[in-house]
Protein backbone atom coordinates (compact mmCIF):
# COMPACT_ATOMS: atom_id res chain seq x y z
CA UNK A 1 0.00 0.00 0.00
CA UNK A 2 1.23 3.51 -0.72
CA UNK A 3 1.24 6.31 1.88
CA UNK A 4 -1.55 8.14 0.04
CA UNK A 5 -3.74 5.00 -0.06
CA UNK A 6 -3.07 4.53 3.65
CA UNK A 7 -3.92 8.17 4.36
CA UNK A 8 -7.19 7.92 2.46
CA UNK A 9 -8.13 4.66 4.16
CA UNK A 10 -7.82 6.22 7.64
CA UNK A 11 -8.66 9.85 6.78
CA UNK A 12 -5.19 11.14 7.64
CA UNK A 13 -4.43 14.64 6.47
CA UNK A 14 -2.05 14.79 3.48
CA UNK A 15 0.25 17.76 4.16
CA UNK A 16 2.41 17.06 1.13
CA UNK A 17 1.94 14.30 -1.44
CA UNK A 18 5.55 14.09 -2.62
CA UNK A 19 6.24 10.54 -3.78
CA UNK A 20 3.34 9.25 -1.69
CA UNK A 21 1.60 7.74 -4.70
CA UNK A 22 4.74 6.21 -6.21
CA UNK A 23 6.30 4.12 -3.46
CA UNK A 24 5.14 1.42 -1.08
CA UNK A 25 5.16 1.31 2.70
CA UNK A 26 7.34 -1.70 3.49
CA UNK A 27 7.98 -1.15 7.19
CA UNK A 28 7.41 1.14 10.16
CA UNK A 29 9.87 3.18 12.21
CA UNK A 30 8.88 5.10 15.35
CA UNK A 31 11.33 7.58 16.86
CA UNK A 32 11.56 11.30 17.66
CA UNK A 33 15.30 11.84 17.86
CA UNK A 34 16.51 12.70 14.39
CA UNK A 35 20.06 11.48 14.93
CA UNK A 36 18.72 8.01 15.75
CA UNK A 37 16.33 7.95 12.79
CA UNK A 38 19.11 9.00 10.44
CA UNK A 39 21.09 5.83 11.01
CA UNK A 40 18.30 3.32 11.62
CA UNK A 41 15.13 3.96 9.65
CA UNK A 42 15.05 1.77 6.56
CA UNK A 43 14.21 2.36 2.91
CA UNK A 44 10.43 2.61 2.39
CA UNK A 45 9.59 2.68 6.10
CA UNK A 46 6.68 4.83 7.18
CA UNK A 47 8.32 6.99 9.85
CA UNK A 48 6.01 8.08 12.66
CA UNK A 49 7.16 11.04 14.74
CA UNK A 50 6.12 14.17 16.62
CA UNK A 51 9.18 16.02 15.30
CA UNK A 52 7.82 18.31 12.65
CA UNK A 53 10.62 20.76 11.98
CA UNK A 54 12.53 21.37 8.76
CA UNK A 55 15.28 18.94 9.73
CA UNK A 56 12.78 16.07 9.85
CA UNK A 57 12.30 16.51 6.11
CA UNK A 58 16.05 16.37 5.52
CA UNK A 59 16.31 13.23 7.62
CA UNK A 60 13.46 11.61 5.66
CA UNK A 61 15.45 12.26 2.47
CA UNK A 62 18.65 10.84 3.98
CA UNK A 63 16.96 7.72 5.33
CA UNK A 64 14.86 7.45 2.14
CA UNK A 65 11.68 6.59 4.01
CA UNK A 66 8.36 6.14 2.24
CA UNK A 67 6.69 8.95 4.17
CA UNK A 68 6.63 10.89 7.42
CA UNK A 69 3.50 10.48 9.52
CA UNK A 70 3.17 13.23 12.12
CA UNK A 71 1.34 11.90 15.16
CA UNK A 72 -0.49 13.75 17.96
CA UNK A 73 -1.75 16.36 15.49
CA UNK A 74 1.66 17.99 15.14
CA UNK A 75 1.70 20.80 12.59
CA UNK A 76 4.28 21.44 9.89
CA UNK A 77 5.57 25.01 9.77
CA UNK A 78 6.00 26.96 6.52
CA UNK A 79 9.73 26.32 6.27
CA UNK A 80 9.28 22.57 6.71
CA UNK A 81 6.34 22.47 4.27
CA UNK A 82 8.40 24.26 1.64
CA UNK A 83 11.28 21.81 2.18
CA UNK A 84 8.90 18.84 1.84
CA UNK A 85 7.62 20.22 -1.48
CA UNK A 86 11.18 20.87 -2.71
CA UNK A 87 12.46 17.45 -1.69
CA UNK A 88 9.33 15.54 -2.76
CA UNK A 89 8.73 14.06 0.68
CA UNK A 90 5.29 12.67 1.48
CA UNK A 91 4.05 14.01 4.82
CA UNK A 92 0.86 12.80 6.49
CA UNK A 93 -0.73 13.97 9.71
CA UNK A 94 -2.98 12.36 12.29
CA UNK A 95 -4.31 13.24 15.74
CA UNK A 96 -3.67 9.68 16.90
CA UNK A 97 -0.73 8.81 19.16
CA UNK A 98 2.30 7.11 17.57
CA UNK A 99 1.38 3.66 18.93
CA UNK A 100 -2.16 3.78 17.49
CA UNK A 101 -0.80 4.76 14.07
CA UNK A 102 1.74 1.95 14.22
CA UNK A 103 -1.08 -0.52 14.91
CA UNK A 104 -2.96 0.70 11.82
CA UNK A 105 0.21 0.23 9.76
CA UNK A 106 0.72 -3.28 11.11
CA UNK A 107 -2.59 -4.24 9.51
CA UNK A 108 -1.41 -3.29 6.02
CA UNK A 109 2.02 -4.95 6.19
Amino acid at each position, binding site marked *: MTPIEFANKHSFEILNEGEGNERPINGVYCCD*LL*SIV*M*GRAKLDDAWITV*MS*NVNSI*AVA*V*LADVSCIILSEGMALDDQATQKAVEQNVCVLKSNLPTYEIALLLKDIL
Partner: protein
Amino acid sequence: MTPNNIVNMALLLGLDAIAVSDHNSSLNLPAVFDAAKNTDLVIIPAIEVCTNEEVHLLCLFHSLNDVMNFNETIYEFLPPIKNNENVFGKQLILDSEDNIIGKEEKLLINALSIGIEQLLKISKSNNGVVIPAHVDKHSYSIISNLGFIPEEYEFTCIEIKNPENKIQFNGKYITNSDAHYLENISEPIHFLEVKEKSIDGIMEYFKEH
Protein backbone atom coordinates in the same frame (compact mmCIF):
# COMPACT_ATOMS: atom_id res chain seq x y z
CA MET B 1 28.68 34.04 5.83
CA THR B 2 32.44 34.28 5.49
CA PRO B 3 34.95 35.29 8.19
CA ASN B 4 35.43 38.77 6.69
CA ASN B 5 31.72 39.29 6.05
CA ILE B 6 30.89 38.39 9.64
CA VAL B 7 33.56 40.64 11.11
CA ASN B 8 32.77 43.58 8.82
CA MET B 9 29.02 43.25 9.27
CA ALA B 10 29.49 43.26 13.05
CA LEU B 11 31.67 46.39 12.78
CA LEU B 12 29.16 48.11 10.49
CA LEU B 13 26.41 47.41 12.99
CA GLY B 14 28.56 48.83 15.77
CA LEU B 15 28.75 45.67 17.86
CA ASP B 16 31.42 45.41 20.58
CA ALA B 17 31.56 41.65 20.81
CA ILE B 18 30.27 38.62 18.94
CA ALA B 19 30.43 34.89 19.64
CA VAL B 20 31.01 32.91 16.48
CA SER B 21 29.58 29.47 17.00
CA ASP B 22 29.25 26.95 14.20
CA HIS B 23 27.34 23.73 14.78
CA ASN B 24 29.69 21.15 16.30
CA SER B 25 32.79 22.74 14.76
CA SER B 26 35.42 25.40 15.43
CA LEU B 27 37.31 25.01 12.18
CA ASN B 28 36.36 28.46 10.84
CA LEU B 29 37.36 30.28 14.02
CA PRO B 30 41.08 30.75 13.26
CA ALA B 31 40.11 32.66 10.10
CA VAL B 32 37.57 34.80 11.99
CA PHE B 33 40.18 35.69 14.63
CA ASP B 34 42.61 36.59 11.90
CA ALA B 35 40.05 38.70 10.06
CA ALA B 36 39.31 40.66 13.26
CA LYS B 37 42.99 40.99 14.22
CA ASN B 38 43.40 44.76 13.69
CA THR B 39 39.92 45.74 14.86
CA ASP B 40 38.34 46.49 18.24
CA LEU B 41 35.78 43.73 17.80
CA VAL B 42 35.89 41.11 20.54
CA ILE B 43 35.41 37.58 19.19
CA ILE B 44 34.34 34.93 21.68
CA PRO B 45 35.50 31.55 20.39
CA ALA B 46 32.44 29.31 20.56
CA ILE B 47 30.69 26.21 19.27
CA GLU B 48 26.99 25.39 19.29
CA VAL B 49 27.03 21.76 20.29
CA CYS B 50 24.20 19.27 19.75
CA THR B 51 24.24 16.53 22.41
CA ASN B 52 22.70 13.07 22.13
CA GLU B 53 19.55 14.42 23.78
CA GLU B 54 19.41 16.67 20.68
CA VAL B 55 19.78 19.69 22.89
CA HIS B 56 21.72 22.67 21.57
CA LEU B 57 24.26 24.09 23.98
CA LEU B 58 26.32 27.19 23.37
CA CYS B 59 29.91 26.53 24.48
CA LEU B 60 32.08 29.62 24.97
CA PHE B 61 35.83 29.69 25.58
CA HIS B 62 38.63 32.00 26.72
CA SER B 63 40.91 31.36 23.76
CA LEU B 64 41.23 29.96 20.28
CA ASN B 65 43.52 27.31 21.70
CA ASP B 66 40.87 26.14 24.18
CA VAL B 67 38.11 25.96 21.57
CA MET B 68 40.32 24.03 19.16
CA ASN B 69 41.20 21.49 21.86
CA PHE B 70 37.53 21.18 22.79
CA ASN B 71 36.68 20.73 19.12
CA GLU B 72 39.21 17.94 18.74
CA THR B 73 37.70 16.08 21.68
CA ILE B 74 34.07 16.35 20.58
CA TYR B 75 34.86 15.51 16.94
CA GLU B 76 35.47 11.92 18.01
CA PHE B 77 31.84 11.81 19.14
CA LEU B 78 30.41 13.12 15.87
CA PRO B 79 28.87 10.13 14.05
CA PRO B 80 30.57 9.12 10.79
CA ILE B 81 27.56 10.13 8.69
CA LYS B 82 28.58 12.07 5.60
CA ASN B 83 27.10 15.44 4.75
CA ASN B 84 24.67 15.46 1.84
CA GLU B 85 25.33 18.84 0.23
CA ASN B 86 22.07 18.82 -1.75
CA VAL B 87 20.07 18.58 1.45
CA PHE B 88 22.18 20.39 4.06
CA GLY B 89 24.37 22.67 1.95
CA LYS B 90 28.16 22.88 1.86
CA GLN B 91 30.33 22.70 4.99
CA LEU B 92 33.29 24.81 3.90
CA ILE B 93 36.37 25.79 5.86
CA LEU B 94 37.74 29.23 4.92
CA ASP B 95 40.95 31.15 5.58
CA SER B 96 41.26 34.79 6.69
CA GLU B 97 41.08 35.93 3.03
CA ASP B 98 37.79 34.05 2.61
CA ASN B 99 39.44 31.43 0.41
CA ILE B 100 38.11 27.90 0.62
CA ILE B 101 40.80 25.75 2.25
CA GLY B 102 38.82 22.65 3.05
CA LYS B 103 35.53 20.94 3.56
CA GLU B 104 34.09 19.07 6.54
CA GLU B 105 32.93 15.64 5.34
CA LYS B 106 31.00 14.58 8.44
CA LEU B 107 27.49 15.96 8.83
CA LEU B 108 27.77 18.77 11.38
CA ILE B 109 24.06 19.19 12.04
CA ASN B 110 24.07 15.74 13.62
CA ALA B 111 23.98 15.05 17.34
CA LEU B 112 27.15 14.02 19.15
CA SER B 113 27.06 10.58 20.74
CA ILE B 114 27.58 12.05 24.23
CA GLY B 115 25.08 13.54 26.63
CA ILE B 116 24.94 16.89 28.39
CA GLU B 117 26.75 15.66 31.49
CA GLN B 118 29.79 14.43 29.61
CA LEU B 119 29.84 17.53 27.44
CA LEU B 120 29.92 19.74 30.54
CA LYS B 121 32.98 17.83 31.77
CA ILE B 122 34.79 18.30 28.46
CA SER B 123 33.93 22.00 28.43
CA LYS B 124 35.13 22.41 32.01
CA SER B 125 38.46 20.74 31.26
CA ASN B 126 38.94 23.37 28.54
CA ASN B 127 37.96 26.24 30.86
CA GLY B 128 34.72 26.85 28.96
CA VAL B 129 31.24 27.93 29.90
CA VAL B 130 28.03 26.26 28.67
CA ILE B 131 24.75 28.05 28.02
CA PRO B 132 21.61 26.14 26.94
CA ALA B 133 20.54 27.72 23.63
CA HIS B 134 17.05 28.95 22.66
CA VAL B 135 15.42 27.17 25.63
CA ASP B 136 11.99 28.44 24.54
CA LYS B 137 12.13 26.76 21.11
CA HIS B 138 10.10 23.63 20.38
CA SER B 139 13.02 21.73 18.96
CA TYR B 140 16.64 21.22 19.97
CA SER B 141 16.09 22.95 23.29
CA ILE B 142 16.75 21.61 26.77
CA ILE B 143 13.15 22.28 27.81
CA SER B 144 11.54 20.76 24.71
CA ASN B 145 13.67 17.62 24.95
CA LEU B 146 14.14 17.09 28.68
CA GLY B 147 10.99 18.86 29.87
CA PHE B 148 12.83 21.22 32.25
CA ILE B 149 16.30 22.57 33.08
CA PRO B 150 17.91 20.04 35.47
CA GLU B 151 19.50 21.82 38.44
CA GLU B 152 22.40 19.37 38.74
CA TYR B 153 23.93 20.83 35.56
CA GLU B 154 24.42 24.10 37.46
CA PHE B 155 23.94 26.38 34.45
CA THR B 156 24.66 30.00 35.30
CA CYS B 157 22.90 31.40 32.24
CA ILE B 158 20.29 30.41 29.66
CA GLU B 159 19.57 31.82 26.23
CA ILE B 160 15.98 32.71 25.32
CA LYS B 161 15.04 33.29 21.71
CA ASN B 162 12.09 35.50 22.56
CA PRO B 163 12.58 37.45 25.83
CA GLU B 164 8.79 37.73 26.20
CA ASN B 165 8.66 34.01 26.94
CA LYS B 166 8.84 33.77 30.69
CA ILE B 167 11.08 30.87 31.62
CA GLN B 168 11.58 29.88 35.25
CA PHE B 169 15.32 30.00 35.89
CA ASN B 170 17.51 30.98 38.80
CA GLY B 171 20.33 32.75 36.96
CA LYS B 172 21.17 34.98 34.03
CA TYR B 173 19.24 35.30 30.77
CA ILE B 174 20.57 36.35 27.39
CA THR B 175 19.09 36.62 23.90
CA ASN B 176 21.29 36.03 20.86
CA SER B 177 20.66 36.77 17.22
CA ASP B 178 21.47 33.11 16.41
CA ALA B 179 22.26 34.45 12.94
CA HIS B 180 22.62 31.81 10.24
CA TYR B 181 22.69 34.47 7.54
CA LEU B 182 24.52 37.80 7.40
CA GLU B 183 21.31 39.83 7.45
CA ASN B 184 20.23 38.14 10.71
CA ILE B 185 23.14 39.59 12.72
CA SER B 186 21.53 41.76 15.36
CA GLU B 187 21.79 45.50 15.83
CA PRO B 188 23.50 46.48 19.13
CA ILE B 189 20.36 46.03 21.25
CA HIS B 190 21.49 43.33 23.70
CA PHE B 191 23.97 44.33 26.42
CA LEU B 192 26.04 42.63 29.12
CA GLU B 193 27.36 44.42 32.22
CA VAL B 194 31.00 43.36 32.12
CA LYS B 195 34.03 44.56 34.06
CA GLU B 196 36.12 44.90 30.93
CA LYS B 197 35.51 44.68 27.18
CA SER B 198 37.46 41.50 26.53
CA ILE B 199 36.93 37.78 26.11
CA ASP B 200 37.88 37.23 29.76
CA GLY B 201 35.56 40.02 30.90
CA ILE B 202 32.64 38.43 29.10
CA MET B 203 33.55 34.90 30.20
CA GLU B 204 33.75 36.06 33.80
CA TYR B 205 30.24 37.51 33.53
CA PHE B 206 28.87 34.16 32.33
CA LYS B 207 30.76 32.10 34.88
CA GLU B 208 29.60 34.09 37.93
CA HIS B 209 26.61 32.65 39.78
